């Protein structure tokens, strides 16, 4: 286990329910500083919910989430907002503001939170856009971007305030192989070049495993496996095996719970 000041996000005994459905049932997790940590699991296991809990957008039923030593759910509103300025989040859809062009979208957090002169904002925005390879697309509106480009713009926006960590919500979903490759490379290089801490939520096993330092596998509200990508590939836990190998049936059943098939047909 890593030293405690090495841990940026510390989750202890996290329980969260949505209506009557229990999404998390006592989760412990440590996200190491400077590393790319992946959270994987089948769809509907609440991976996105976990990011929202870390970002303080949702409150857990019990348990704690500490980010950089602050208990996220005990912070006052202004302290939470101050903490969020140091956390970037990349939404699945990109969540770009549709009435602003690419340049203004990346400039948005800078304009909201700083009083920098226009010339400096311009330089900063161009630097961030250059980092994601879209400096030439600054005049485009979000509607003119492909899905992959929108995510890269959102990434440039997420790093605009030089955060300490970035959370990626399903960054690879629905991407063609080329833009998938671009995103995979960007996540790793940005993490190392800017000294970030990255949390990647995904169910794309191969891509995610290729860039992560540590992986948690979630299923049914619990952590069913964890380790480095190599350790998980060698794991003999049926949960991890099913997920890593993409088997249709296993501990996560192929069938949604249903009454007996024969009886159902003959009724």
């Amino acid at each position, binding site marked *: 286990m890593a030293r405690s000041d090495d841990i940026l996000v510390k989750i202890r005994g996290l329980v969260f329910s949505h209506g009557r459905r229990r999404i998390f049932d006592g989760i412990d997790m440590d996200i190491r500083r400077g590393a790319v940590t992946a959270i994987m699991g089948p769809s509907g296991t609440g991976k996105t919910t976990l990011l929202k809990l870390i970002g303080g*957008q949702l409150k857990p039923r019990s348990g704690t989430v500490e980010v950089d030593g602050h208990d996220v759910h005990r912070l006052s509103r202004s302290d939470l907002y101050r903490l969020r300025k140091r956390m970037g989040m990349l*939404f699945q859809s990109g969540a770009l503001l549709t009435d602003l062009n690419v340049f203004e979208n990346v400039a948005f957090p800078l304009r909201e*939170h700083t009083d920098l002169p226009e010339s400096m904002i311009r330089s900063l925005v161009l630097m961030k856009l250059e980092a994601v390879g879209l400096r030439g697309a600054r005049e485009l509106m979000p509607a003119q971007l492909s899905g992959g480009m929108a995510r890269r713009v959102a990434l440039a926006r997420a790093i605009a305030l030089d955060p300490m960590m970035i959370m990626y919500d399903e960054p690879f979903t629905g991407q063609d192989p080329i833009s998938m490759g671009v995103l995979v490379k960007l996540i790793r290089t940005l993490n190392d070049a800017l000294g970030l801490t990255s949390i990647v939520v995904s169910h794309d096993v191969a891509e995610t495993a290729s860039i992560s330092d540590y992986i948690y596998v979630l299923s049914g509200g619990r952590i069913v496996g964890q380790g480095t990508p190599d350790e998980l590939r060698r794991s003999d836990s049926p949960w991890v095996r099913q997920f890593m190998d993409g088997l249709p049936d296993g501990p996560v059943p192929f069938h949604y719970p249903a009454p007996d098939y024969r009886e159902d047909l003959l009724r």
Partner: protein
Amino acid sequence: MTAPLQRLGAASLNVFAKLGRANLFLALALTGIPEILRRPGLLIRQMYVVGVLSVLLIALSGLFVGMVLGLQGYNVLSDFGAEESLGVMVAASLVRELGPVVTALLFSGRAGSALTAEIGLMKATEQLSGMEMMAVDPMKRVITPRLFAGILSMPLLAGLFTYIGIYGGYFVGVSLLGVDEGSFWSQMQAAIDFREDLVNSVIKSLAFGVIVTWIAVFEGYDAVPTSEGVSRATTRSVVYSAFAVLGSDFVLTALMFGE
């Protein structure tokens, strides 16, 4: 057997819960006032979208309503040889009722529905969530400027509607049907009271501005974040606005003009 009763109970609970949410929402939106004072650009931009872009619709509608009033008023009044009072009739109906009410109904169709759909879609596409994660309060950045843009635009638009409507009535009554111009204006001037009519008219349109815009931004913010949810919220926004405007118009009229 108790099922209908249960449904009734659940439905009424939902109504009260929603009213509660709407009130909390308004209170939160009001906390954004310092933000729009600090950055008036946010408000001005929304006033352009909500107010200025509604001007053509309001002006044209005002003109036609005034012309119809002139025509109908002339037909009735001339039977009694009282066509000189046409100015009073046109001005009183526009200032007291039609100006604020019709403007509010048009405004909710033109600007209110757009606000609901815009905010609902911002929610559905995670733009509001995204702002929160960028430590920008969507309440202050998105809701408050739109709310106040609507509240401030309504009296101005209602004034424009009334103004142009009176000229519509003048055009039909005086220019086309030959009512005496002097009596048209002088009787209007004598009969329309500043406090009783004009001030009350402004109060009404301000109240309708609050009602229509509040409903519009709240329905958008409270929408189920799917295409169906946004479509329903937009419909509700216009329907509730119409009911609320007409209902509160009766109450306001009774308070202002009732004996």
